[in-house]
């Protein structure tokens, strides 16, 4: 059952998404992109999309380049969307993401970039242009935060006597 929205800072959400991405096994840059995009700009729907994405298996992107046209097949949003602005900046006229799995993440990932998106069934075309305004609805729910924290926890190392000694900051009284 969905729980109540919580008040988290965007810095907290950014850090949490980044750690969750790493915990889910994403390459570092994709985890960074996820944090910046969904952590800073995401609403409840974007967090749901991010969680579904983290649960799915992933592999390297299948990117095809034909002149100035770029196509990414079976595009997973949390991997492919980060490439869109840089491909357009690099000279591509159009980037097409085929069978994009989570369109709800488009607006978050493209915030701050001059990239316009156009839907064509399950495919999405991206060109330089004016981005659609970001519309954020509800903030993330407690159960979403808990799920992300579970992914993030996969990057933590359990405590041991050695790890405690590695914390620094002594306890001497003065």
């Amino acid at each position, binding site marked *: 059952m969905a729980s109540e929205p919580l008040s988290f*800072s965007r810095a907290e959400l950014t850090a949490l998404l980044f750690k969750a991405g790493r915990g889910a096994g994403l390459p*570092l*840059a994709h985890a960074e992109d996820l944090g910046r995009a969904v952590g800073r700009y995401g609403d409840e729907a974007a967090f749901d999309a991010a969680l579904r994405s983290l649960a799915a298996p992933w592999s390297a992107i299948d990117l095809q380049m034909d002149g100035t046209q770029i196509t990414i097949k079976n595009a997973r949003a949390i991997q492919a969307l980060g490439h869109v602005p840089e491909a357009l900046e690099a000279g591509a006229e159009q980037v097409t993401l085929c069978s994009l799995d989570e369109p709800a993440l488009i607006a978050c990932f493209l915030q701050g970039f001059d990239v316009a998106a156009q839907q064509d069934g399950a495919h999405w075309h991206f060109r330089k242009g004016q981005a659609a305004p970001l519309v954020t609805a509800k903030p993330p729910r407690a159960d979403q935060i808990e799920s992300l924290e579970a992914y993030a926890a996969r990057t*933590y190392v359990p405590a041991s006597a050695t790890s*405690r000694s590695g*914390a620094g900051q*002594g306890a001497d009284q003065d």
Partner: protein
Amino acid sequence: MNVPLRKPEKVLSLSHMGVMQPSRLSFLRQLMRDLARLEATVTRSVWDMSAEGHGHAVYAVELGGYTYSLIAFSQHLADEDRSDRVIATAWDAAFVLFDGVPEASDIARLKQNVPHQEAGRLSPKELVLSRANKSVRLFTHVVDALRNGRQPEKAQIADCGYLMRTTAVYGNGKFGLADRTAYDQRPGLSGPFAAEMLTVWLIRGFTHDLAEHLGGAEINRDIKRFLGVGNATGLGMAPFLVSHPQLLHAWFHAREKALSAVLSKDAVSATEAETLLHRGAEASAYLESWEVADEDAMAEIRELRAEWSAFFATASKEALCVPGGLRAVFAGAQSGSPALEELAAAWILEPFDHQVALSTEGMATQLDLALDGAMTCGALKALIEEKCAWALSADFDKKSATAQFWYVSEEKLEPRLGARHEEPGADRESPLDTARAMQALHAALPATDEPCFTFLARAPEHRAIARRVQHLAGNDYGEIRANLIGEEAAPIHLLRAKLSFFGATRFDPKSTLWTRVTLAQGLPLRDEIGRDVPWLPSL
């Protein structure tokens, strides 16, 4: 004459970072200048404290058209519960910097959360969270002296230098606090860590008030001014410098730009020379009074005292005022140890507010790293060879080159450092292995004209480090020139560098993992805003 900036290979080496000193660019001193420029005022609006010194206080700051309130909670803490470790759960005092003037309901809410620190929850109305423990020996001495109608012994004041020490100062959204972006355009809070520095400076005033409350008398101003805030800093602070290459560049570039501008001056005026001599004498007194328990650290301080004494003897008014005199004097420091050079580099900036002010703009940059996807793989490979020689020269086939790994502890969610070949957990290490990652990217990159974004799409494991390497192209000071997972990499060097930028003095290393320092020592009291701020204070 245009004097070139010192090379990043030098100033971002651990040997130089580990001996840095505070300077006119340090954030506490920037804050003091801003408070004076903006004619800030501080009033103690609430003092609800029991005879035992338990209760709460509120200090209101009028700054740049906004009101901020430091809310301090003081409580009983048994001696056995007093610990500077990050794993502590209770403290003598806890603090929050509140945005505005708190209502009674805010105080009630914060009273339930602030003393619990990480276990509590804050709101966007709060900017900074902190806590502090008494330095029991000095606190007791000061209170006893005041109760007996005396002033505290200066020798004891000089020996410790603070009544309380903070063990954490949290900002930028931690635990529900306001995001930095909510206030980073406001006058007085736009500088790096400005809200945190303001909080520390206000906490210092609270520690004075608490001792005077318990002692029933006032501490003399010269003593009170010297009482700063202690700080115990563990390695949790170190990864910040690695995970924020933009800020690392901004801070170091600002300092080097200021130094270059000053050294490029053809002549130093008599007034500027007199300021240099005054500040140099200040440094001599500071060095003589800087005592630490660690024998190796103390030996280094003694060596620096001798070096500084010999160096400063060459810096006569005549020597400074001849054309090119400042450059010649500084060249003398550069022929000494890194510690002497860094001390002299900070000293030279003292009289030159104009050059410092021009350099400090942009020190709080928050720009994201972006990939230039059009750069060819061959060009990216060449860039690594040009900019990352320290990374390419490391031999990662040797165990010593990967002896350590950084990780986040499950227990406190804090960064820690492990021995890779002896402890479990390296499979979960934090990405602070920048040198190794740069070398891996270099090995994987084809020397071709393929745009790098297509290569990085196929090899996404290299994309993050590719962004960092490209950032270095125009931001030379954005990477620490060291293999941070090698056996020789000690966090204490990173702590020293970052704390120097904060404005910390009296570094007192307790191991390679943590250090004590003093913050805000010598700064004006809250009713003295605008008073001259010493570079390196001594009593």
